[in-house]
């Protein structure tokens, strides 16, 4: 992955059995940031899979680790819809690749986060399979509400979950940079999964921690909702991360569902009176 790169794209996907169409548009940007010597983030932005990987490890090893995982995702997933088996297989292969990379560089500590979304069919309906290993994140913006879909595999997340610190305290905790799961390091890469309905007008943000450690969720929500389109959103978010200090590599990938003929009913549930 080059130090600064960007991608834009769009696709219209036919749903099976005459279920209409899905229209997606997306944009991704990555930047080394203002302090790091190189960019160890990689991304994949090509329907039906969108992913961001944040490599870890000295020198080229982290770069190659993140590149390996997006390359394996691209290689294993073809067609209009993905399956979780394909994601799992890609991650296993990437883990093997990273083991080989670590050997070349004579470094044990090489690995990468990976998080993303893949378009799947579940029970005759289109769903995003959201997958995550590490502390890169996926957010959704639906009807103006920003939701963090993934849960970090991080030391501070564990402390938040166990009630020892609050989410606010986590942001400034000295251990906030420790992650507890990664692809590589000889670990079996089993991602956490979530299945989220595909709803028209929603925007999904996939990003490395170079964004979320610099820009608070209020500004993320503002920029993601006010942007004119996915490309505008990815650019605004990246610039906000750089403006806030750009201390780490930063990658922003935004996917917008511009059309969904099988739209999920997101309206409020009403009381039952019978």
């Amino acid at each position, binding site marked *: 992955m080059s130090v600064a790169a960007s991608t834009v794209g769009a696709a219209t996907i036919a749903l099976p059995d005459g279920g209409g169409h899905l229209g997606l548009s997306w944009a991704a940007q990555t930047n080394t940031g203002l302090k790091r010597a190189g960019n160890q983030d990689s991304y994949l932005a090509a329907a039906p899979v969108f992913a961001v990987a944040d490599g870890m490890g000295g020198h080229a090893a982290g770069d190659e680790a993140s590149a390996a995982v997006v390359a394996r995702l691209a290689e294993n997933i073809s067609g209009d819809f993905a399956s979780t088996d394909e994601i799992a297989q890609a991650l296993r292969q990437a883990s093997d690749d990273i083991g080989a990379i670590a050997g070349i560089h004579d470094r044990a500590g090489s690995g990468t986060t990976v998080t993303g979304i893949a378009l799947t069919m579940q029970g005759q309906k289109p769903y995003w399979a959201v997958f995550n290993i590490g502390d890169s994140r996926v957010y959704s913006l639906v009807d103006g509400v920003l939701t963090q879909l993934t849960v970090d595999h991080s030391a501070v997340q564990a402390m938040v979950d166990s009630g020892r610190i609050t989410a606010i305290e986590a942001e400034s905790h000295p251990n906030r940079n*420790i992650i507890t799961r990664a692809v590589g390091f000889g670990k079996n890469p089993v991602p956490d999964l979530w299945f989220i309905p595909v709803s028209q007008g929603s925007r999904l943000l996939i990003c490395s921690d170079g964004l979320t450690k610099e820009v608070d969720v209020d500004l993320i929500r503002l920029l993601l909702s006010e942007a004119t389109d996915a490309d505008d959103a990815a650019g605004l978010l990246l610039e906000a991360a750089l403006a806030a200090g750009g201390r780490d590599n930063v990658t922003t990938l935004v996917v917008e569902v511009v059309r969904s003929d099988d739209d999920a009913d997101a309206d409020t549930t009403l009381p039952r009176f019978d």
Partner: protein
Amino acid sequence: MRVEWHMPVTLHIHPDVIDPKASQLRRSADGVVQLLVGAEVSVKVWLRHTGMPVSAHVGEVIGGVTSMELDDTAGIDDDTVLHADGIVAAGDAVIQPLMRTGNDVDDTIIGQPALAGAEIRQADIDDQTILGQPAAMADVIDDPDASADTVIGPGRSRPESPTGGAAPASAPVVTGTPLLPPALPAIPSISASAHVNAGVSPTGSRRTRIEPAGASGGATSILAVSFPDGRTVALDRAVYVGRSPKSPRITSGLVPELVAVPSPRREVSSTHVEIQQEGRAVVVRDLGSTNGTRVRAPGAAPSLLSPGASRVVAVGTLLDLGDDVVLEIVERSGASW
């Protein structure tokens, strides 16, 4: 703050509209170096072969720049010098890295458990990443070599039996609250006595154990759920039902069944109920729905399963979600839809 280049660059100065005190360097498509500056930042540049700095302003394109000074009151100490080595303004897109001296770097750390605490401060200066395994998280690591307590993997054997105890006290948090209380015999006919806490939301950080039904209790038959439209969905995995159901976090890799049901009057919540087979029992959990779930066991009066509550139910039990969506727990007949 001062930025220096070894090779002269062409600088194109842009406004930064987000932060009046910010400044950043970036690549430009036409091979120049872009400088974005906020309204409160003043810029002086040094040109090749000249000793005196020149003030630079937004909108200008200046060639032959060898260094620049940013007077940003934002608090970057004035002594800081950025060596913009490697910035190439000739179109090969390399404008970074910038190496800042005299400032910390906020690294992600990936480290060994014992090292994690000690390595944090070190990482402020070392550009290294460490996979951490703090004590509290040790059980969560998905290590195939770890003990049977590892939380992931549908094929593993669970320490608890269907008639036996709950998860051990030392079980990792990810396994969540055991769905079956310790004293509960796995016989559906006494199901009314089983009622476990489940004050949870359908999404977010809720921990749910999802396993094949057979994993916990030997040779048990797989039950199913029938839907008003005639579909029958096997309970060999967790089933989520609602107008437009989401799954919770899945750590096992086992994909649940998400079944959308129509609700023209919107009485059914988007993710209304979770149905899982646990051994020979079926556990129904209302996922904090707006209207709750009406449960009618065979031969019993209907009762309301409050939003967020769980109950063990028998074959033949009807689950009324509202809007004429009535599900039934049935013996499995043939394949799922």
